[in-house]
């Protein structure tokens, strides 16, 4: 592996780890707040999958960085300016409709992106993808079911779901942005060319939203910046909570 590729791959693994830990954290905020007990369990499951992915991606990033850091240094010792997750993942949990619509957007994204990552020439990334693909099948079945039920449920649930779709739509464009690092890795057969997934994502999401009697929004606005550490104000508050114990006891093992 050339130094340039190695460094890019480390950055890439960190990004994917950041996406996973941030979304996993947001999902975990639902535990004991769900609409019924079965849902608390389901949320716990999905959160666990994402925390698991974060650990694998960070461990690989740490291995490539080879500077003595471990997975927890990546998760707990970087601030929001250093985090590289997509903005969609860091938005607050909102109401149940908001979380499920966000989940649908993320799940469809992963359903398309992971099979490509499975083809990566990088064996570690490919192996993580293999595990994650199975999880995502279950996640997508679940979020799709929920969006159908909420969209085509009561007047209230429909309105909440539509509001969530409208509020979240502007954060989905960033999912398909490529920068130099990602282009380099895509060209090298290591990373995924997410720009190429856009149309299929839009098609899949549109089919589900339409079946759910929801309206697919126009592309009237787009917020970007997660991949360069330019986050919304939400991430800082989330990391505050997430990191406080770790940071209050520097250098400790848990």
């Amino acid at each position, binding site marked *: 592996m050339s130094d340039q590729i190695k460094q890019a791959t480390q950055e890439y693994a960190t990004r994917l780890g950041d996406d996973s*830990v941030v979304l996993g*954290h947001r999902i*975990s*905020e639902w*535990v*004991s*707040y*769900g*609409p*019924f*007990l*079965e*849902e*608390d*369990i389901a949320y*716990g*499951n999905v*959160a*666990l999958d994402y*925390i*698991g992915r*974060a*650990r694998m991606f*960070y461990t690989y990033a740490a291995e490539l960085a080879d500077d003595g850091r471990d*997975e*927890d240094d990546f*998760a*707990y010792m970087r601030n929001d300016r250093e985090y590289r997750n997509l903005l969609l993942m860091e938005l607050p949990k909102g*109401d*149940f409709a908001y979380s499920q619509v966000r989940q649908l957007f993320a799940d469809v994204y992963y359903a398309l992106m992971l099979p490509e990552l499975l083809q990566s020439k990088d064996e570690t990334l490919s192996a993580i993808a293999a595990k994650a693909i199975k999880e995502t099948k279950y996640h997508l079945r679940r979020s799709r079911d929920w969006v*159908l*039920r*909420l969209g*085509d*449920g*009561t007047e*209230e*649930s429909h309105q*909440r779901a539509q509001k969530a779709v409208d509020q979240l739509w502007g954060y989905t464009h960033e999912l398909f942005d490529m920068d130099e690092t990602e282009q380099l890795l895509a060209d090298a057969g290591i990373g995924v060319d997410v720009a190429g997934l856009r149309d299929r994502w839009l098609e899949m999401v549109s089919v589900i939203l339409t079946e759910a009697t929801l309206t697919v929004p126009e592309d009237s606005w787009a917020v970007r910046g997660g991949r360069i550490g330019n986050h919304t104000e939400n991430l800082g508050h989330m990391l505050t*909570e*997430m990191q*406080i*114990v*770790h940071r209050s*006891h520097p*250098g*400790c*093992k*848990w």
Partner: protein
Amino acid sequence: MTTPQEENFMRKISAEEKIEPKDWMPDAYRKNLIRQISQHAHSEVIGMQPEGNWLTRAPSLRRKAILLSKIQDEAGHGLYLYSACETLGISRSEMIEQLQSGAAKYSSIFNYPTLTWADVGAIGWLVDGAAIVNQVSLQRTSYGPYSRGMIRICKEESFHQRQGYEAMLALAKGSEGQKAMAQDALNRFYWPALMMFGPHDSESAHSQKSMEWKIKRETNDDLRQKFVDQTVKQIEVLGLEHPDKNIKWNEERGHYDSSDLNWDEFWSVINGNGHCNRQRVEHHVAAHDEGEWVRDAITAYNEKKRAKNAQHAA
């Protein structure tokens, strides 16, 4: 005068046969079981809160995953126990109503706040530990579904206890600050954990009948003694100070002697003076109420589908 039904029921109890949902049983037996199993279920559910309080602050990803998984298991236990209880003719929504109105109780240990990360370890180790001592004995309880539930739940609880103890060990062997945190958690949770076994046998309202019917298989004090005995060594291994200055091996009894418990505090907390009595129930009510529109949406969606399918079929 005992009826033939009663006679048959007591015969099964004596013969260590399980009572099953379809079997005849005395009303008081049924009531007693509903009270105990639903309280147990509610404890699993409410118990998600004090630990959930640290889910977003867990200091490593590994601990975060373990804690997530543990809380999920508790939700699963809650579900399982609600189902077991439903076999006695009460619905889950009735049970939830009773929890929210205060008619049904949950374990008073969850009225104590979790103040530091170490409390998560202490709960796993001491609270789950005390629960297991009780539940192991309940594996032989006379009501079939409850007994089978306990067998299943015990396995997972033992796993949780080991993880809790391991989390405490990491702290106790860690920095000064971590060790102090562990000692503090031990000091706060040790006594309430002992009180989880309930009042002294002489004071226990439900105990005698429960023993006769073999719903309970061992007395509160006997179970508590087991827990006291097993915990001494565990504290030693951690290298922490035992919170009970009077703990002492009694060769004659073959058990540890220990201090009297502060039952005034026990009753005080049960009666509403715990830090979290109101908070736990309010949290449950708030989440349940906020979820109402979601549950309504499912109902509406399912009805639409049913109507559509009926149309297709016609």
